[in-house]
């Protein structure tokens, strides 16, 4: 605007005589600028220029040129461009669409070329100061012109452009990769039914336009870069192509493949892709140069501009790759963890990529929910949960040495395991190597250099303060601090419950079971386990177990002593029964199940004799037999067959011994004779029914089957008898033991209620925590458990509850 005003001023100031000359000079100069072909002599041009400058019009030349460019653009070029692009509707072949795209851009360039040339020329004049001309030079003018072009052309872009460009680039990419990559991707190219289809352009080979496409690409790149539109037109398409292709390739190659690393492979592939990119952005390099024909072939374009653009794209690509890879692996992380030792490569890849993308939070959330939906529901066996947890520990400590991911992601597992009743039993079974399919724990236990569970108290491990690194931001702030964020599998498992006593108790129970079920006194394996556990849990905690093992050794010695004594007896004084015993130090064994059982006289006598000999051996000591424990090896001789070397429990033996005297017993009679409840006997009798020794008849009578025909055997095979297959544990169960421990608190609760009259559940819980903080039991006891316990007391009328408030009954 301002310039227009100035122009009119100038015109007014100059005399009418010169006006015509000025107009002619203007005409000459502008013609020379816009149409490079027809120019007058250099001399006259210089004169005209000088005249214009002397009239103060020289500086208006640039403005005029831009103005006319703008007018031209908005009135004809831009509408033509869009019309040209849209004009052929969808009927065209892909190849032709590419051609249309190219032609449109060609036309665009043709239309704008005069102006660009003019600007350049003007700029040169300005630089030279020809005729006193001054101005921003070619660069400045062109920048403004390109801004105008961009603004007007892409002011309201139609999606057609993006579509076409995308299509064209995708095609040239395929073609390029096909040529450069050789047959690497060949297998994936769709083999048309005609067979002879070109893998690059996917048309029958005779019509292959691969070379043409690459030529087009070159030209298009050149035009776009000449108009400085390359970045604006191509970036989006290139980005989306790269994204799509990396994703595609990843889906094809990496999904479900955890056993090898893909980083290098992708690195190579990305380099190849970079070759294509260098073609797309080829002409960036010679943006300034007027060379119309771009150099062909990769590797030639090494101009500084090009390499910086390519560098940028390389970074982008790596970013894409990492992000896509991390996304995919996050999705698969559960499976990766499940397969852990085999999927180590995938974990390492993920670690590398995760460090480059900010997706830890995403990983945590997704892994947590995967655990919750796939693992932590009632349908999964506890041992399987433990197996996955162990793999997770191993995998995640690879992934994140700071253990934060492990700690946060596995929190739900730990919480859930706490609610499972058999968790401790499974862990202990794993530790002792009894659990099937779960050998990790046993091998972890026997691993050298164990982490003592006590060691966590030492605060300063002599670490260099300089080595300190802060926790990642997603760490759970807790008082434990990073020092205690252990990666040791056993300590992690044991700490699920917060105390190791519960594990040691459980181990004691398991050990008792195993020892009592042993026929020989062979304890080598148990001794080894106890020694290993001692390294973990500390000597004092395993003391009881050591005494138990010593009992076994002592028992063996006492047995051989007694045997020897017996062997010195005369023939007819020989005991009728070969009896050996496991002699326990009752204070050190876990509480054993009490069951009433009257053994047959012959056994009782043998036991008495044994006790007698023991008393002689150990002064002032005697034995208290546990008739229902132990095992018996016996043969059953029937009329037509003999069952030899059956190993049964004492109650089974007692039953069958009674049948020796009398071949028919009712349940009542047996129950009376054995002093055992009928239900128990009924279950135990099933074993002999299965062996075909006894048979049940109406009225609850059992008979000896002296002659077993094959037909009967067949029937027996079909007959379903609910025998107690599961091996009864000799020790009281964990829940019973807990009950006992809770009973300890009853005195506290009673005292509190006596003093404070009434309390709510939460209050009782927190008071117990406060007063009885020493033992491990309270910390493990959650409110629900306490509530269940109190409810039981209410049912037993030892407590009253109303409106959530507990009080003691008034009567006492």
């Amino acid at each position, binding site marked *: 605007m301002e310039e227009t005003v100035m122009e009119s001023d100038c015109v007014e100031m100059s005399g009418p005589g010169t006006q015509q000359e000025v107009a002619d000079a203007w005409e000459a100069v502008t013609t020379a600028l816009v149409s490079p072909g027809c120019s007058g002599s250099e001399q006259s041009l210089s004169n005209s220029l000088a005249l214009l400058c002397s009239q103060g019009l020289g500086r208006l030349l640039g403005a005029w040129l831009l103005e006319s460019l703008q007018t031209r653009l908005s009135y004809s070029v831009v509408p033509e461009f869009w019309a040209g692009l849209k004009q052929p509707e969808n009927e065209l072949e892909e190849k032709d669409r590419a051609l249309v795209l190219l032609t449109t851009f060609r036309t665009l360039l043709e239309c704008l070329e005069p102006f660009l040339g003019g600007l350049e020329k003007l700029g040169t004049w300005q630089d030279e100061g020809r005729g006193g001309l001054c101005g921003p030079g070619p660069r400045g003018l062109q920048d403004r012109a390109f801004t105008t072009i961009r603004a007007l052309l892409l002011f309201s872009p139609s999606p057609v452009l993006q579509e076409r460009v995308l299509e064209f680039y995708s095609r040239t990419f395929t073609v390029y990769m096909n040529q450069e990559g050789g047959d690497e991707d060949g297998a994936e190219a769709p083999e048309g039914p005609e067979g002879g289809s070109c893998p690059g352009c996917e048309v029958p080979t005779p019509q292959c336009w691969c070379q043409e496409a690459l030529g087009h690409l070159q030209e298009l790149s050149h035009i776009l870069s000449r108009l400085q539109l390359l970045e604006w037109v191509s970036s989006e398409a290139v980005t989306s192509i790269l994204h799509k292709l990396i994703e595609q390739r990843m889906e094809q190659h990496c999904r479900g493949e955890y056993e090898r690393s893909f980083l290098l492979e992708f690195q190579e592939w990305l380099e190849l892709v970079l070759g294509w990119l260098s073609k797309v952005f080829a002409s960036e390099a010679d943006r300034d140069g007027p060379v119309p024909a771009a150099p062909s072939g990769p590797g030639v374009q090494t101009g500084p501009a090009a390499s910086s653009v390519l560098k940028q794209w390389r970074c982008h690509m790596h970013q894409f790759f990492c992000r896509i890879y991390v996304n995919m692996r996050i999705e698969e992380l559960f499976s990766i963890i499940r397969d852990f030792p085999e999927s180590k490569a995938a974990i390492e890849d993920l670690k590398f990529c995760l460090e480059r993308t900010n997706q830890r939070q995403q990983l945590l959330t997704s892994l947590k929910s995967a655990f919750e939906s796939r693992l932590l529901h009632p349908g999964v066996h506890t041992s399987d949960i433990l197996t996955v947890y162990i793999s997770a520990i191993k995998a995640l400590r690879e992934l994140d040495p700071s253990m934060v991911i492990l700690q946060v992601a596995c929190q739900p597992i730990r919480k859930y395991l706490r609610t499972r009743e058999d968790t401790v039993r499974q862990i202990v079974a794993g530790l002792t190597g009894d659990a099937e399919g779960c050998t990790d724990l046993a091998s972890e236990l026997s691993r050298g250099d164990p982490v003592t569970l006590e060691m966590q108290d030492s605060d300063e491990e002599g670490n260099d303060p300089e080595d300190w690194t802060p926790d990642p931001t997603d760490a759970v702030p807790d008082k434990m601090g990073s020092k205690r964020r252990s990666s040791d599998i056993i300590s992690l498992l044991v700490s699920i419950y917060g105390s190791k006593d519960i594990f040691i108790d459980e181990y004691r129970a398991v050990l008792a079971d195993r020892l009592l079920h042993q026929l020989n006194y062979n304890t080598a394996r148990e001794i080894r386990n106890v020694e290993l556990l001692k390294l973990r849990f500390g000597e004092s905690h395993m003391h009881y177990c050591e005494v138990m093992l010593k009992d076994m050794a002592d028992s063996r010695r006492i047995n051989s002593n007694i045997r020897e004594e017996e062997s010195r007896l005369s023939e007819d004084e020989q005991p009728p029964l070969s009896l050996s015993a496991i002699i326990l130090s009752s204070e050190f064994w876990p509480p054993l199940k009490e069951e009433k059982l009257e053994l047959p006289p012959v056994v009782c006598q043998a036991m008495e004799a044994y006790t007698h000999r*023991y008393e002689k051996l150990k002064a002032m000591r*005697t034995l208290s037999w546990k008739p229902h424990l132990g095992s018996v090896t016996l043969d059953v001789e029937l009329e037509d067959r003999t069952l030899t070397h059956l190993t049964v429990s004492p109650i089974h033996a007692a039953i069958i011994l009674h049948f020796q005297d009398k071949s028919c017993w009712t349940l009542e009679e047996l129950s009376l004779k054995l002093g055992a409840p009928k239900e128990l006997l009924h279950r135990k009798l099933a074993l002999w029914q299965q062996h075909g020794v006894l048979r049940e008849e109406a009225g609850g009578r059992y008979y000896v089957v002296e002659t077993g025909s094959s037909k009967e055997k067949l029937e027996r095979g079909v007959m379903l008898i609910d025998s107690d297959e599961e091996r009864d544990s000799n020790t009281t169960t964990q829940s019973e033991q807990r009950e006992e421990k809770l009973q300890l608190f009853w005195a506290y609760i009673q005292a509190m209620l006596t003093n404070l009259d009434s309390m709510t559940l939460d209050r009782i819980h927190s008071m117990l925590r406060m007063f009885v903080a020493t033992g491990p039991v309270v910390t493990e006891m959650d409110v629900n458990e306490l509530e269940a316990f109190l409810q039981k007391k209410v049912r037993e009328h030892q407590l009253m509850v109303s409106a959530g408030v507990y009080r003691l009954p008034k009567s006492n």
Partner: protein
Amino acid sequence: MKVKIRQWNGVASWLWVANDENCGICRMPFNGCCPDCKVPGDDCPLVWGQCSHCFHMHCILKWLNSQQVQQQCPMCRQEWKFKE
């Protein structure tokens, strides 16, 4: 039918023939061991006095050693004599 028992493995627990459950000195069960011992039984035996009170041997010896003037049973204050 005839049943032949080849081997009977029984389970029993041993106990001291004493008239009390716990040691009057350390208050630990007789069938366990005194606080200084790890293993019960032979390694931590009981002894009886003529007054028929009994203690862990280690416990009563410690007690007797601490007595300056006269050696008495800690339970009944009679003179302590080991029962033969």
